[in-house]
């Protein structure tokens, strides 16, 4: 068998219709740009831009010994509903999202989930790790009008005064489960929306519809990378 797997985002068809320039990165088809880079930057500065973290890794950790394990991983004690940055393995930046007392999610860069999972599986006790990367799609909404856009989609109070930076919440969005994280990029207001892969197209279509009069624009991987 001489096949090389190419991973596809559930949004590839949408990217094709939006005229994205696609490129292969880390085994994934990734939208690099949707328009000229300046237009994407302008949306980020003045309204709101949407982009997908194509291929992002996600590991779910569940178990009563989660706290001890977090300590071993070098994760500072994190209250439920908050997120922190850490290094899952040296040199590999990651985020720890404390969803409940016994449930956390580690969010990783593309391709990092496998090695990290192997490292974590060495842990003893009743702590279980499941790679849930394939089932999730994560979108970034970056720009000052992000809360206005979210107000049309999410009942949760995402006003920046109420939903502080690095807050995370499990809620609903237009009828589907949603994990929302606020993770600002410097002065830029930024929300990350994680939904099931099976509803990703539905969610994106709804976001596009809700945001068309707010100046919503797509941004590709180039723009997203620059924001990091």
């Amino acid at each position, binding site marked *: 068998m001489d096949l090389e797997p190419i991973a596809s985002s559930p949004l590839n068809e949408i990217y094709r219709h939006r005229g994205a320039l696609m490129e292969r990165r880390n085994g994934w088809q990734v939208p690099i740009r949707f328009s000229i880079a300046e237009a994407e930057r302008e949306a980020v500065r003045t309204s709101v831009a949407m982009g997908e973290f194509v291929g992002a890794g996600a590991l779910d950790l569940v178990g009563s010994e989660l706290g001890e394990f977090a300590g071993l991983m070098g994760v500072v004690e994190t209250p439920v509903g908050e997120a922190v940055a850490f290094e899952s393995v040296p040199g590999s930046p990651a985020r720890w999202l404390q969803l409940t007392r016994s449930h956390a999610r580690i969010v990783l860069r593309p391709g990092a989930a496998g090695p990290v999972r192997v490292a974590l599986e060495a842990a003893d006790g009743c702590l279980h790790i499941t790679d849930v990367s394939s*089932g*999730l799609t994560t979108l970034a909404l970056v720009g000052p009008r992000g809360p206005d856009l979210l107000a049309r989609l999410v009942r949760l*109070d995402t006003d920046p005064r109420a939903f502080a930076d690095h807050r995370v919440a499990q809620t609903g969005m237009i009828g589907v489960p949603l994990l929302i994280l606020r993770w600002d990029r410097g002065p830029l207001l930024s929300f990350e929306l994680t939904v099931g892969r099976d509803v990703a197209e539905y969610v994106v279509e709804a976001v596009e519809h809700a945001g068309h009069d707010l100046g919503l624009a797509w941004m590709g991987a180039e723009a997203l990378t620059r924001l990091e």
Partner: protein
Amino acid sequence: MREGDPSEAPDAPPSARLPGHADGDGREITIFFDGRPVAAREGDSVAAALYAAGTRIFTRSFKYHRPRGLLCGAGRCPNCLMNVDGAPNVRSCVTPARDGMQVRHQNAWPSLEIDALAVLGRMERLLPVGFYYKTFIHPRALWPVYERILRQVGGLGVIERGSRPEGYHHEYRSTEVAVVGGGPAGMSAALAAAGTGCRVTLVEEEEALGGMLREDPHPRLPGGDRAGRPGREIGAELAAALEAAGVTVWTGATAVGAYEGRQLAVQRGRALIELRYERLVLATGAFERPAVFAGNDLPGVMLGTGAQRLMRLYGVRPGQRAVVATAHDGGLELAEELRAAGVEVVAVADSRPDDAPRSPAYQRLAAAGVPVLSDTGVAKAYGGLRLSHVAVAPRGRSLRWLRCDLLCLSLGWEPALALLSQNAAGEPRWDAARGIYAAGLGDNEILAAGSLCGVDDLVACLEHGEAAGRAAARGSGDHHGGVGGSSIQPRNLPSVVESGPSSSRPATVLIAETRLDGRQFVCVCEDVTVKDITRAVAEGFDQVELLKRYSTASMGPCQGKMCRVAVGELLAQQIGETPAAVGTSRARPPAQPVTLGALGAAHAAPVRRTPMHHRHGALGARLMNLGEWKRPEVYSSVEEECRAVREGVGLIDVSTLGKLEVVGKDAVALLEKVYTGRFADLRPGRVRYGVACDDAGIILDDGTFARLGPERWFITTTSGGVEAMDQWLRWWSAPGPGGSPPCAHVTNLTAGLAAVNLAGPRSREVLSRLTDLDLSPEAFPYLGAREATVAAVPALLLRIGFVGELGYEIHVPAEYGGQVWDALLEAGEESGIRPFGVEAQRVLRLEKGHVIVGHDTDALSNPLDAGMPWVVKWEKDDFVGRPSLLRLSAERQEQEVEGQLRLVGFTLPGDIWIPERSQVVEGGQPAGRVTSYRVSPTLEQGIGLAWVPTASAVEGAAIRIALPGGAIEAAVTLRPFYDPEGFRVRS
């Protein structure tokens, strides 16, 4: 009406704008009224622009098509509803004019001036109150005809068919303190709350803040920094302070409902906003109320505040010759203001007695030669298309007729209670001192302030608002002052019925004491007259809520704002009671009209797509909705697809299957507890079928269980059952009281795995081209589970088959689903592979007699009666539903239970088609039902599943199935229709 009477002319001459008005002086713009250009100014309302251009008739009434002109001028009555830019029933008096705006009249044909349906006004006798309960009901068959005519004749605006205005949407916002009303009390409340650090949102219906201050050119405060400054300056100062304080201000936003759960519905532009709050301050103010007298609906009869708004906000002179009817000094001040605007004030009819104290305004009017007629009320307004003169009735003296084109009613104020009373703990109560209904007290989440509480002095309003804002802030959380919410009670604040400052605006008589001939309208929305109310009460509808429903008074667009008090007063007069005794009808949402487009904007119907979704479209599949999923129903023809699976190889997307991972050392115990089958003895690498029941032994779901390791399980569920089973498993894996949590964790992998079923006698040869796994029956037997790569993608393969052929269920990471699908189709090309859809799958599974949970079973089905007793393992000590199933089993063995049904297969000869859900009948009576039926292309006969009486559940028994042409006979079978021994699936 005399020939040549000016009141026959529908319009007045255009009036020059008054200098120096508040919001006007903007650039000139043009709007179009019925296609005719009308000059307007930026800042005008649509109605103000039209009024300035001479328009006096703005709409025709609901029932009698009477001409109607501006009445309140503040968005509270129905008299200015128009079609604006295609949207019907827009309140033109509060809608800002914009350049190029297209305004059209509604509810009149061919024009507002000449309306053919005005003939209905002469048919009053045929259209008495409640006529629709008595007429148009026989013969019943004609109702569709009646309905069409009635809908043409009655009603208000018309929604243009096919139009889909864009931009309507819902929003969800939150705040700590919400304030409704941008007048002095509301602004003061918002400022006070914001000063404590609260997040505050202020909702104001008008396009600018200020309320009465916005219009008020007079000095209002007796002392302090603001003394001697016009009200509008004070309002502007407060508005600026709000911005500085970071208050979120929504102008042009209408609060339409206050709901339980601390939710306020607000329409703002094309958005319907669900505003969640911790504390709500209502400062909705008060409005002038009209009076009931003959001809009171003529264009030219206007509330005093309506005239003031025209003058103050838009610089429009409201008339040439005016009569002012009043009951308080405010009416006298209005007369002065009219005079200052160049309106000739013919007289002031003051209902107060001769010996009432004379105010300075009275002295000034008298000095100017304006007759102020004390102890005098309006008896009748005369005119054709607009007002020509009025008759006033001094008490005990003869009538006087006064020629005028404007009658201003400045008779008293009514709190805008709608929102408060929607949430009030008690019914609105009659306040005899003021002649108003006051809301019952709300709960401690809602506070009232300002004129809503009968406070009308500016200083008091500001203080009152400030107190309410502070109290709201204290109650909105533990970080804004430290006083718990329980201490916040409306009782702490002045209210109409409690300790509020007394109003300087006294009550007045609403119903004319001198009644002359002519229609006296009580409810202008629904064209309900005094005569209608009288007749309805005489017919026995003498309770206020019943009277409302029968007469429809207060059921129109204004929701009773213009008539609630008058209806109560009339009812009280009729039955010899007091208004307090009769009460008033309850205000309900919406408090103000809300656009249907905004209400209907929400459209949250999730759509789930499999990773191969777009491949199916490219292959020409017809898609169907199965729950939230989109699935291919058929690609080419069901027969061809079935044949491919039976004779060659087929491929179906089964990604919609629920997929759960259960891990942990207690995973086996959890499965043994939740499912009826045995799992402890299942070896890794093997698969088993299982069923879950609830406590009553009812089938919840079914699926397959693959043991991938000692503590790792992969479970499939039905497509629609995965969320429920996920929750059910989590429920049973929760620790009991005082117990430690079991080590078993459930993860829903449904969206993360693409799945296909490669089925058919040639499936092995196709799969062998894409994997290195040994696929021989010995190495990978039926009910085996293997982890390998397929098309270079890591995969889980299960040797199972829903369709009864050699088959492989292949699960791969969703991101590779499309690639694996393509690879399988390509690899199978030389083997004649075909994709098959849900319909072919249903036929094939039915040939095998497989049950679809939720389709062949329902909320009463248990495994014993569903023909699956073998899934229940009695040797287990405990599992969910065991006691119930044990009891059912014992009952079945002891005796035949009446009405007990069993699920069996049946056959019909040839190609007879019957609908699913057909009834099984015995002796002509319903005895069971068909759940599945198809004509099998393989077996060339009709096959189905049906619930039949136990006595008929034997091999070869005959059952009768009811069809429209008569019952037909079918033969029962308890064996699968196809390959009953299961040789093919094991091959």
